[in-house]
């Protein structure tokens, strides 16, 4: 080999050796970091079917039950506006008085909708829960989405892992229950993305509830060193079996990430036993549990992207009073989570964008079911159920209110391209061909 040729080949080899480890799964050498608006995003998929009338419009009972003068805002941490002073039933119980007469004190000095971007009237693409959740997490319209199957289109976790190079523990989905296909939302089975790029997931009321405690809390604490022989033997067995990608049924973490997650689970049960899991002051029920453990995950993993789902508001199908109470509590625990990030996680405090949006609305007209106060309940199936709102606040988010009841701006499918925009991979996500063609970043809607 000639000297010149030798030098040329050596330089190519060395250069390749240096560069190759940094190539992203998408094939790009460097992630687009120049336009990153914040380092972390937390998406709250809010509550389980929320009517515009009782939430962002602040019309309380006047609109829904025809109680003249009973208007006001029962979500003080999300929206600005005075609380109702008539027929207050959504708060805490005071002994000797009517149930729910004591509203939960607001946690935030300024409502989230005042601190950041409030899209007052957004079009949802579905009037149902699962397709609505799919819309929020995939940015697709979910027209052909079935139940009990993974999303047809890639989730935001897959986009970020593939195009932004995030690890599995950078991406988390927290669900409120194992029913209604919720545990399938951490990854699609899309052929171009799929489980190789899926996010981690817990369903805290189950994983860390009594079932989880009975099943997982007695785990032996193994060190990485102790586990090394096990992983080596497992690796040999797996190579021998050579499972094809088409048969893959789970997302994958690295060995180090797996050890970290297992340690987290073990430590969480210990903290739980000692009563050290922080909860919202007035939180109770599954949604508060989900939010409490979301706080634990945020503190431990400081994920780049975390999405969590709440659903207790869905009791509105048969109990309107319960719905009002659930809305008020969902507002409280959402405010608490934002406050927790600001006060307890310095790495995320000033570097997080917080997004809140319901997956669908509720009907204009009630069903015939009446509750303890003789108020009618509401389902979700008509045009009014496709009216929702969204709130976004945090780093680099301007304080602005967009749209009105008579002027809808934006679609629920905007959330995924908005998150992609925050992390600087908007073009990759839009160009994937899997999201709603009409969706765009909310920053671009302004």
């Amino acid at each position, binding site marked *: 080999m000639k000297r010149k040729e030798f030098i040329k080949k050596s330089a190519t080899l060395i250069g390749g050796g240096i560069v190759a480890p940094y190539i992203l799964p998408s094939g790009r050498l460097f992630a687009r970091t120049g336009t990153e608006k914040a380092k972390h995003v937390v998406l709250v998929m809010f509550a389980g079917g929320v009517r515009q009338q009782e939430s962002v419009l602040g019309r309380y009972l006047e609109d829904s039950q025809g109680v003249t003068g009973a208007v006001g805002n029962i979500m003080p941490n999300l929206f600005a506006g005075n609380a109702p002073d008539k027929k207050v039933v959504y708060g805490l119980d005071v002994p000797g008085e009517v149930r729910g007469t004591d509203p939960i004190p607001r946690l935030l000095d300024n409502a989230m909708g005042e601190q950041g971007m409030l899209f007052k009237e957004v079009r949802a693409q579905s009037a149902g829960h699962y397709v609505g959740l799919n819309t929020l997490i995939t940015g697709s319209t979910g027209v052909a989405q079935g139940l009990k199957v993974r999303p047809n289109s890639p989730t935001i976790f897959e986009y970020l892992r593939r195009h932004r190079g995030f690890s*599995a523990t950078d991406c988390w*989905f927290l*669900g409120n229950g*194992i029913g209604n296909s919720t*545990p399938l939302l*951490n*990854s699609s089975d899309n052929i171009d993305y799929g489980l190789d790029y*899926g*996010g*981690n*997931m*817990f*369903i805290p009321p*189950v*994983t860390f509830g009594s*079932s*989880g405690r*009975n*099943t*997982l*809390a*007695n*785990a*032996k604490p*193994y060190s990485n060193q*102790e586990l090394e*022989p*096990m*992983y*080596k*033997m*497992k690796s*040999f*067995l*797996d190579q*021998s*079996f050579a*499972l094809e990608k088409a*048969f893959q*049924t*789970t*997302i*994958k*973490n690295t060995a180090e990430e*797996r050890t970290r*997650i*297992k340690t987290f*689970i073990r430590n969480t049960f210990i903290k739980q036993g000692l009563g050290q899991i922080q909860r919202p002051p007035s939180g109770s029920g599954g949604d508060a549990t989900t939010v409490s453990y979301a706080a634990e995950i945020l503190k431990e993993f400081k994920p780049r992207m975390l999405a969590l789902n709440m659903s207790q508001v869905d009791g509105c199908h048969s109990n309107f009073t319960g719905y009002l109470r659930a809305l008020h509590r969902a507002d409280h625990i959402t405010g608490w989570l934002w406050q927790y990030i600001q006060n307890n996680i310095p790495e995320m405090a000033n570097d997080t964008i917080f997004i809140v949006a319901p997956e669908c609305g509720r009907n204009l007209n009630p069903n015939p079911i009446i509750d303890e106060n003789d108020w009618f309940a509401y389902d979700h199936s008509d045009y009014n159920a496709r009216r929702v709102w969204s709130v976004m606040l945090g780093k680099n988010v301007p304080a602005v209110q967009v749209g009105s009841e008579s002027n809808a701006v934006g679609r629920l499918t905007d959330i995924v391209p908005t998150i992609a925009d925050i992390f600087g991979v908007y073009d990759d996500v839009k160009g994937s061909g899997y999201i709603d063609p009409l969706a765009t970043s909310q920053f671009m809607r302004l």
Partner: protein
Amino acid sequence: MPSFKFYIVSVGLLVSIISCNKKVDVSYGIEDIAVYETKAQKQKAKNEAEYISILYTNLFQEAISPATLYQTQNVLYSIGDQNVAKEMLLSNYFNRTDLKIPTEQYMRSNIEGFVIETYKRFLLRTPSEAEKTYFIRYITNNKDVTVEMVYSAFAASDEYGYY
């Protein structure tokens, strides 16, 4: 005209021809053949209930109760990375005192036999020569490898998740 004696002799002869067959003693048996699965045949993923109940039986030599099965199934379903979920479950099982697994001494005294038994116990097949050689060498050369580690590797392997 044939005499009466002729009839008697003819009938007697006929009876003796029909009735006097030589008895043939025929018996059927079953040849012992060991039947095991092969890797190539395993194409169906076990669901959570199948995985848990088979694992439980493998480790405790008894059936899991329906209530415990249901509870465990829900918990596995609530964790995104099934490898993490299964490793946590195994780790809990190995922390129980009613576990029925071979002793370290048994494994070290007959490593080849242990490897073959472990393949049959978890993967329902005999190991290939290459697989047997790998495990015998690995266990022999690594004194800190325990039965628990070997069982964990098998129970957490991809192949164990299929049938």
